[in-house]
């Protein structure tokens, strides 16, 4: 796993699989510059075949713009095709506003924290 200190600017994404759930922890800033790498990594996990649901922990995401919304919308479509659920947790105020503006809350579920998100999807944390 990458250490946070290795990359002071930009975004670090930590991926972990728990049963059929892909858990992603985003640390840093998600903009257009970072969006492509996140998309590619995220897609490669989804294409392994043994993932159905996705949890994204946004606790340490300090900045996001509409490029990030694009990544979420794109992956939501893929998760939906897998008949899975997409859950975001620990969402901060400013990211929440963007989700509200874009209507993403209509399709993406939210939980207060990672443990709640995991239990929602039937995974013991």
């Amino acid at each position: 796993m990458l250490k946070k200190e290795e990359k002071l600017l930009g975004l670090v994404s930590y991926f972990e699989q728990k049963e059929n759930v892909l858990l992603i922890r985003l640390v840093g800033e998600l903009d257009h510059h970072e969006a492509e790498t996140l998309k590619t990594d995220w897609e490669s996990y989804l294409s392994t075949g043994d993932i159905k649901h996705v949890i994204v922990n946004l606790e340490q995401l300090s900045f996001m713009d509409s490029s990030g919304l694009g990544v979420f919308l794109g992956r939501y479509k893929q998760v939906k095709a897998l008949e899975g659920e997409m859950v975001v947790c620990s969402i901060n105020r400013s990211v929440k506003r963007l989700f509200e503006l874009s209507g993403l809350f209509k399709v993406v579920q939210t939980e207060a924290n990672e443990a709640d998100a995991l239990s929602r999807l039937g995974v013991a944390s």
Partner: protein
Amino acid sequence: MTNHMKVEMAAKSENESFARVVIASFISQLDPTLDELTEVKTVISEAVTNAIIHGYEANEEGVVILACSIEDDEVTIWVQDFGRGIDDVHEAMEPMYTSKPELERSGMGFTIMENFMDQLDVHSSETGTTVTLVKRFNHDHRPIAK
């Protein structure tokens, strides 16, 4: 108080975070709240990203100019490119509209700019686009709880 600044940068995606840091640092003299700072950083990110993706279509030789002026409690920010311009500004400003769906754009850039700022003006021709953003930091008249 009046003050102004102007920065020129290459149309590279690395410079999106640079533009955010520059603007956040410059407006800090108005003692903005954390929410205001995030709003301004977000709209600058949107406008600079638009210049790079749409104005220059990822040609990194393009140049983006970021300028900002402060007049009392009012901040005006200009993001200018010399790219291909926007064919139809009204269409571009529609929520969820994107001219580049293949790039997985959300089409929310202008909607975010409109929501987070007090005024948005887009001037575009075949020689480039200038986005003008105005925000007032009137702390005396702000509601106490938001």
